[in-house]
């Protein structure tokens, strides 16, 4: 078990270094960083001095090593656009994205699993057909269109929910939260639904097909033959056996939710990391883009580690592999 975690952590570090390399390359290959820093009329010898100061003349491995060391300490340099430390810029945007993604993920997971179980158990029920039809729409509509349609209906026609922004937030030290004000909560609804809808339908369809499959297995038939109650069979035996693939997909999708929030945040002018990233791209703010890249990779690595640990909790067959076998 411990060896497994260490192995996975090691793999995670390798992934982070690879992503770090890509992020670092941005500095050198997307234009000359000196050009981004100084004015157009700076003389050549001053440019050369600055280049020497910043260590840009050092060999590539040394520069990359310096980038990694600084990155580990949370130092990703200054934003070109705002002349502030990148970590502070991103840190101020992080809570908005995390809260939005979290709510979207919870919506997707709770409704997705619930609807999936229902459609899996009662494939012929009218409600199941409705769920499946609606889910087709959810899968096929692009996120920005869903967002715009929701704004049209709930903000423009009905006028019941705000169409942009985050509402009022409460600060807890460095963290700002919209969970504790009514405007904050109301502002959260539309973007969270938009962001979670696709994942919801994906999870629902996955749970449904897994459930249909598991209900045909011998151990479910045998459980029936032993006279167990439907509740014990459906939720005790069947649902747990659908969990491994659901955990895999949900884990990956949680990463995707954070990454995809770029689009949703743009549509709803949500002051999160995604919006920051778009603004940074527009102004070629390379330190922010590179840091965003590293940060998203970190999310994926951490989520995947959690997914692997959850496998262990769910499936005993994984716990006992290796030479010991029976004990």
């Amino acid at each position, binding site marked *: 078990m411990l060896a497994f975690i260490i192995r996975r952590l090691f793999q995670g570090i390798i992934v982070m270094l690879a992503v770090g390399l890509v992020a670092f390359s941005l500095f050198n290959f997307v234009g000359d960083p000196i050009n981004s820093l100084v004015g157009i009329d700076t003389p050549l010898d001053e440019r050369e001095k600055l280049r020497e100061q910043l260590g840009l003349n050092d060999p590539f491995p040394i520069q990359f090593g310096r980038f990694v060391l600084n990155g580990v300490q949370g130092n990703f340099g200054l934003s070109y656009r705002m002349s502030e430390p990148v970590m502070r810029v991103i840190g101020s945007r992080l809570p908005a994205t995390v809260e939005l993604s979290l709510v979207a993920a919870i919506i997707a997971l709770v409704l997705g699993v619930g609807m999936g179980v229902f459609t899996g158990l009662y494939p012929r029920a009218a409600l199941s057909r409705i769920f499946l039809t609606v889910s087709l729409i959810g899968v096929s509509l692009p996120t920005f269109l869903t967002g715009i349609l929701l704004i049209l209906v709930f903000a423009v026609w009905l006028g019941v929910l705000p169409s942009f922004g985050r509402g009022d937030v409460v600060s807890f030290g460095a963290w700002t939260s919209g969970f504790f004000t009514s405007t904050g909560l109301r502002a959260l609804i539309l973007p969270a639904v938009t962001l979670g809808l696709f994942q919801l339908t994906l999870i629902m369809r996955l749970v449904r097909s897994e459930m249909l499959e598991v209900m045909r297995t011998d151990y479910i038939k045998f459980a*029936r*033959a*032993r*006279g167990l109650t439907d509740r014990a069979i459906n939720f005790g035996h069947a649902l747990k056996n659908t969990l491994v693939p659901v955990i895999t997909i949900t884990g990956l999708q949680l990463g995707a939710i954070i990454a995809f929030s770029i689009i949703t945040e743009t549509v709803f002018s949500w002051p999160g990391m995604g919006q920051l990233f778009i603004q940074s791209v527009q102004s070629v703010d390379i330190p922010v883009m590179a840091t965003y890249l590293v940060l998203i990779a970190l999310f994926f690595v951490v989520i995947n580690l959690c997914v692997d640990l959850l496998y262990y909790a769910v499936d005993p067959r994984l716990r006992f592999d290796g030479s010991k076998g029976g004990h």
Partner: protein
Amino acid sequence: MNAIPNQPLLEVRNLRVEFPTRRGTLLAVDDVSFHIAPGEVLGVVGESGAGKSLTGAAIIGLLEPPGRVAGGEILLAGRRIDQLSYDEMRKVRGAQIGAIFQDPLTSLNPLYTVGRQLIETIQTHVKLTAQQARTRAIDLLKEVGIPAAEQRIDHYPHQFSGGMRQRVVIALALCANPKLIIADEPTTALDVSIQAQIIALIKRLCREHGTAVMLVTHDMGVIAETADRVAVMYAGRIAEIGPVREVVKNARHPYTSGLMGSIPSVGGEQGKLTQIEGSMPRLTEIPPGCAFNPRCPEAGERCVVERPDLLPAGRSSAACWLYDAAGVGRKLRQPQTVPEAVNG
């Protein structure tokens, strides 16, 4: 217990199982009647698709849709169970009728310890505390011959070998001390050496508990070893039913004779193994008259027109016109010379 002597434990009368399909309704089990006495072992043999497993599934009320019982009665200790609601039938399953399935590797839920599955089943049917149920589960595991049951109870199914898993499955079927066990191919998925052990175990447990068994299999050897009586099924009907020694030694129905002739025996002086030409008809293509007539060496004119019901034949009963006073009529084919011509 309080059953009247001589009253059968299980009685199946004129059971019909149908499968509605797009191209009409298929009759998978057609007018099957038999009974099982308390403590008796009834073997049910037949080829794949003969309807033997479906008969078992119909008795425990677990036919897979769209299959359904279309006619007949099923009585357990004198009480009709084929018309019970799903929830009433659920209480019969496990408590009064246990089931053992073919593949022990897939019959157990891989995510729970065998102890959890045993305790869950015991507590569903018997009012016991968790601790009492656990004690009973350990006793059951000991009874089915699992060594170190106190430790093994907390192991997961994948930590058991195939034979040991089938023992666990048997323990699960015995949780609430049912009066009848339906064993559907309990040894088919096991190694030959382990098959004998499992058969011996089922025999011993049933003797000790007085449990009746309906043993569904296509293995005539298992039947000869275990059963008191045997029913031979063909194309959804019982072809022959009788005491096991009688059916094995003096097969009455031509199909049974063919079946017995095709079994190799170790050390016997038997010559060439015979083979029944052709194969069992599909449910959509059952011929008129006796379903076996296209393959039957004894078939006569009457066999292609009129369908025989079970007729007394020695100490057995056989669904064959040979045992009717009027006979089969003029023979359709010459015995022994036919096989080459049939396929040509």
